[in-house]
């Protein structure tokens, strides 16, 4: 039972982190129709910028400044890159962001090298806040949960209470109409892209010390973020939240319960082959849950797309 609680907390941290990326990605997708392949690359840039800043002035200024720089970079990419490619259609846009993701990874390697950089959590949060039957819960994890929650609530308030938020909401469901109402849609696009990438930057800053700051971090998380928004339903913020938490928990629980296929199959009444190493099906017999864990999100996505192409909460077709 205690392990369940620990896993719940860990899964919540992963899920909220995913949500910080998927919320921005889904906002950008809903408004502009662009699935930004480079979204996780901005998350990576957030981590590296914060690391660079933390070397001279510490973690806390980095938490503020790094996402700002990332957001400005994102807005510039939209203004001078995406907008240029936009006229060729959605597929070239997707190809552009894919190329951008490759390029950003190379640039990061150029400046910071291929190895992981020692980006650490601030001293002030480097203690165990409480422990559940011997499993210490670091204060930093709780801090991550609070930051993500705060950002989520802030986003919700902006979207539902402010004028810009209302325009964005309208653009989510009726992108063409908003333009005919005379709003400066290109500017809104640039803004949303900037804010979305800045959110990814925040996620990078707070995840860097925990998940590691290395050139592959974008690829590792990037595909999962895609899976998240597809599972949740493209264009749905609630869907993104639910799918983020779902995937966060599924992967966390899968990683910590060592259930083997051997047990499942014998439990079902099958007898294991005499000599396992010679059997053609040995991989099925030796399969364990933690082994399958990393592919579960993809399996989930394929299932969702086959049986419910709109995603769990999606309404709009792509």
């Amino acid at each position, binding site marked *: 039972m205690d392990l369940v609680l620990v896993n719940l907390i860990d899964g919540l941290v992963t899920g909220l982190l995913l949500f910080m990326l998927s919320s921005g990605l889904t906002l950008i997708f809903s408004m502009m129709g662009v699935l930004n392949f480079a979204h996780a690359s901005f998350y990576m840039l957030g981590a590296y910028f914060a690391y660079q800043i933390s070397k001279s002035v510490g973690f806390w200024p980095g938490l503020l400044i790094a996402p700002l720089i990332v957001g400005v970079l994102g807005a510039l990419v939209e203004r001078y890159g995406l907008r240029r*490619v936009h006229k060729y259609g959605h597929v070239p846009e997707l*190809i552009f962001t894919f190329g951008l993701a490759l390029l950003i990874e190379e640039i990061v390697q150029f400046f910071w090298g291929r190895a992981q950089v020692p980006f650490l959590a601030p001293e002030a949060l480097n203690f165990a806040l409480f422990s559940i039957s011997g499993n210490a819960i670091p204060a930093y994890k709780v801090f991550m949960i609070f930051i993500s929650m705060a950002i989520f609530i802030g986003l919700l308030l902006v979207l539902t209470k402010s004028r810009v938020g209302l325009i964005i909401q309208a653009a989510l469901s009726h992108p063409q109409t908003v333009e005919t109402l005379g709003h400066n849609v290109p500017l809104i696009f640039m803004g949303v892209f900037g804010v979305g990438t800045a959110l990814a930057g925040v996620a990078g800053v707070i995840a860097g010390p925990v998940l590691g700051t290395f050139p592959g971090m974008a690829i590792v998380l990037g595909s999962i973020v*895609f899976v998240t928004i597809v599972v949740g339903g493209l264009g749905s913020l609630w869907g993104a939240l639910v799918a983020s938490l779902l995937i966060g928990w599924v992967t966390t629980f899968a990683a910590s319960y060592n259930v083997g296929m051997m047990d499942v199959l014998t439990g079902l009444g099958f007898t294991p082959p005499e000599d396992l190493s010679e059997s053609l099906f040995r991989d099925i017999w030796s399969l364990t849950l933690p082994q399958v864990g990393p592919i579960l999100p993809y399996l989930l996505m394929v299932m969702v797309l086959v049986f419910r192409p709109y995603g769990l909460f999606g309404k709009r077709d792509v």
Partner: protein
Amino acid sequence: MTSLDHTRTRPAAGGLSLATLAPWLMAALFLAVMPFIFADNSAITIMNQMAITIIFALAYNMLLGQGGMLSFGHAVYMGLGGFMCVHIMNWMEDGAISMPLPLLPLFGGLFGLGFAMLIGSFSTRKAGTVFAMISLGVGELIAACSVIVVVFFGGEEGVSGDRTYGIPVLGVEFLHQIEVYYLTAFWLMLSAALMYLFSRTPVGRMANAVRDNPERAEFLGYSQRWVRYYSFCASGFFAGIAGGLFAINYEILTEENLNLATSGTILLVTFLGGVGFFFGPIIGAIVFTLLATVLKLHTELWQLYVGAIFVATVMFFPGGLAGLLAMHVAPWRLGKMGVLVKPYLTTLLPGVIGGLGLAGATEMLFHAREAAEGDEAMGLFFMEVSSHSPVAWAAVLAVTAAGFWLARRGAPGLKAAWDEANTAPRGRR
């Protein structure tokens, strides 16, 4: 319709003529003599790699260029075909089955086709973003499976085999690279011709129609989904053939043959060559293989340059290299290529020099940061320079700035010349 019309249209509508066969015959001749020009083993290895990449890129373009489907997981079909072929090679070694080696790629193709039929049955329901996402998901899924299903994928170290246990063909046992080259070249010609012919069949034509306007195609009696499905299966088949050739050439397949990086590379190759033309991916594969080989020899940063070139291509030349070539057909026909020579020299040349200057600066920065303490000498464009010398820095930055400045200054002139070169002289049409 007048009889004049008939005589004009009939040859174009007819089948085999010397004019339509000429490029193919020339390509075959070219492939036959290449090993005599570049005889050493490393050159033949590069040409084999090129041929495999061409087949894979052409197969990929059946999706992207012909069918409008962007896949982020097409390496899977090539990889699966390759893995299957390595297993078959091992069975041949065990004596379980025996057949001539040149037939092997066919089985790779069939295996790729089988998987494409399975995956395509749900992934081709939608085009565009949904298709791209499913392809990514399936690709990651199968790449991740490679460490789990050890029986088939061999886990971390992959599976390897020995190609020399097939039934000898005319005494050839494929011990030498050159023999493998001709086997690969044969499959290249065959696959390319078949893929070209596929694009001329009713379903191949409808693939273009569905790409351009899926809804209209439905109102012509075709289900967009099934049209995409057929293209997808055909593409999986030819990707599998490429995989089989890969297995024969390298005798080993690993997780790397399945993952996103490989899928991304083939997208890059195809796009660089140009998706709008059948021959685009061929150019892309040749240029990319050469570029990668040369860059790899000279710099650690080759992937950075490739990435930059790719992004620049998407932004400025969405037609790729084939598109650039095709743009020049009109001026060529008008006999006005001469108009373009001077502006190309005064604009594009400085642009290229500026780009090289920028690359030089990047290399120097990299060297200054990465090289061991005290190691200041580095080779740069056949020169020995010091990465810490202010003079060298000033020179490289000056070249960069001057190059870009000249290019920028010449740009309006180039545009004017381009417009001029594309206008027919008065009184002609």
